[in-house]
């Protein structure tokens, strides 16, 4: 075993660049996943069959197929008839879309957890549908599912290196490039440790949050 700290030192500037890209992907991906997921969840409760059924089918399909293949699909197929996106943008869309199907389930559970009496009360007050959702149901549903949503952000973080496969320079992408250019091997170890160092405190934090927000 011959670990060389000077290689680590050389890699660090690339590491910070990569970390920034990873965090960017995570932040935008989270934004897409949270908002799109809510849309899916509400659409799945629609009384219109032609909305409910396709949305359920699409989310089931996306959730049960590999993110990696979806990324390849987005990166190569979409430009054939749509906009050409950079690897990072494709990665963000892919991560956001993939995880929106998980957050949809989280929201769904949260919405189902709101007591029926709340719906009935809204009906009794003859609140319009929009007000029922925004003022009664969602505030109660979302509060309870914040920790669960957070756990999916941590999951997304751990899946985010897959965007390196389509050429985005996130932490893994930088490490791969550095490794191939210098024939050293320290970079991937550093990145591996970085994931644990970020993910562990995040999940501890979420456990604390869960104790305070749920029940």
């Amino acid at each position, binding site marked *: 075993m011959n670990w060389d700290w000077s290689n680590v030192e050389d890699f660090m500037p690339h590491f910070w660049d990569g970390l920034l890209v990873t965090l960017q992907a995570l932040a935008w991906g989270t934004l897409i996943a949270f908002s799109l997921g809510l849309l899916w969840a509400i659409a799945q409760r629609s009384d219109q069959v032609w909305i409910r059924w396709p949305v359920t089918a699409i989310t089931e399909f996306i959730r*049960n*197929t*590999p993110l990696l*293949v979806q990324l390849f699909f987005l990166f190569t197929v979409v430009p*054939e008839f749509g906009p050409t996106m950079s690897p990072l943008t494709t990665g963000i869309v892919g991560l956001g879309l993939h995880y929106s199907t998980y957050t949809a389930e989280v929201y769904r559970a949260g919405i189902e957890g709101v007591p029926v009496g709340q719906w009935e009360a809204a009906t009794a007050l003859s609140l319009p549908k929009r007000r029922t959702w925004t003022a009664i149901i969602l505030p109660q549903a979302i509060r309870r599912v914040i920790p669960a949503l957070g*756990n999916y952000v941590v999951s997304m973080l751990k899946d985010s*290196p897959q965007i390196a496969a389509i050429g985005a320079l996130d932490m*893994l992408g930088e490490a791969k490039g550095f490794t191939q250019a210098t024939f050293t091997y320290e970079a991937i170890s550093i990145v591996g440790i970085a994931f644990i160092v970020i993910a*562990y405190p995040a999940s501890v934090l979420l456990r604390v949050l869960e104790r305070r927000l749920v029940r």
Partner: protein
Amino acid sequence: MMTSDFITAWFLPGLWITVQITVYSAALAFVIAFPIGVLRTSPLWIVRFLAGTYFEIFRGTSALVFMFWMAFTVPMLFGFSFLPMAAGVLALGMTYGAYGSEIVRGALAAVPVAQREAGVALNFTKGQRLRKIEIPQAWPEMLPPFNNLLIELLKGTSLVSLIAVADMTFAGNLWRLVTAESAPVYTVLLVVYFVLAFLLTRGMRLLERHAKARIGQAPEKVGLLGGLRSKSSIDAVTGTGGAK
């Protein structure tokens, strides 16, 4: 190369590799998940701590980075190398084993305390209690989240294509390079993964019905198209939510 040649030369062998890797890494994950999960319910704090450390480390690990590390760093750092497929199976098995341990722990913790106390009252040893009382009751509770985890694992096997294992995704990428037609190739690939996930779910539902019948519970009614994921209080994807 003709498409039909390509399918027999690359795609079907790739499908077979995907199935093999799923089976091997599921077996490894299971073999890791059970002892770690049981040890995490141990009354000794040091045992709980060590098993918990395994869980926390591998739950915080990105499976892909770990796989790269096994495939590219280990040979240079320690001077021995795995077959690429073994590196993939080890990485997947060890990370998903950590998630699985949370399922085992949560299901064991959900067995009513009175059951354990009854075992104590009957003078059962710890091992007997585990084998004859706790695991048989926890097992049907484990199957639905195991089903979800298995689908995650199946999806995760696509990562081995990035360490040059010729699985289905690898074959798909080659196929795209040869035909230069992305849309049909990746659509077929996604559909095949979906069908595999569907078949896994059918198999797991059968196991679940069998396990529930054995301890005298009625199976939950789910339609043929009632979703691939099973309902469970334990979230297999994030490794959270089990009984404390």
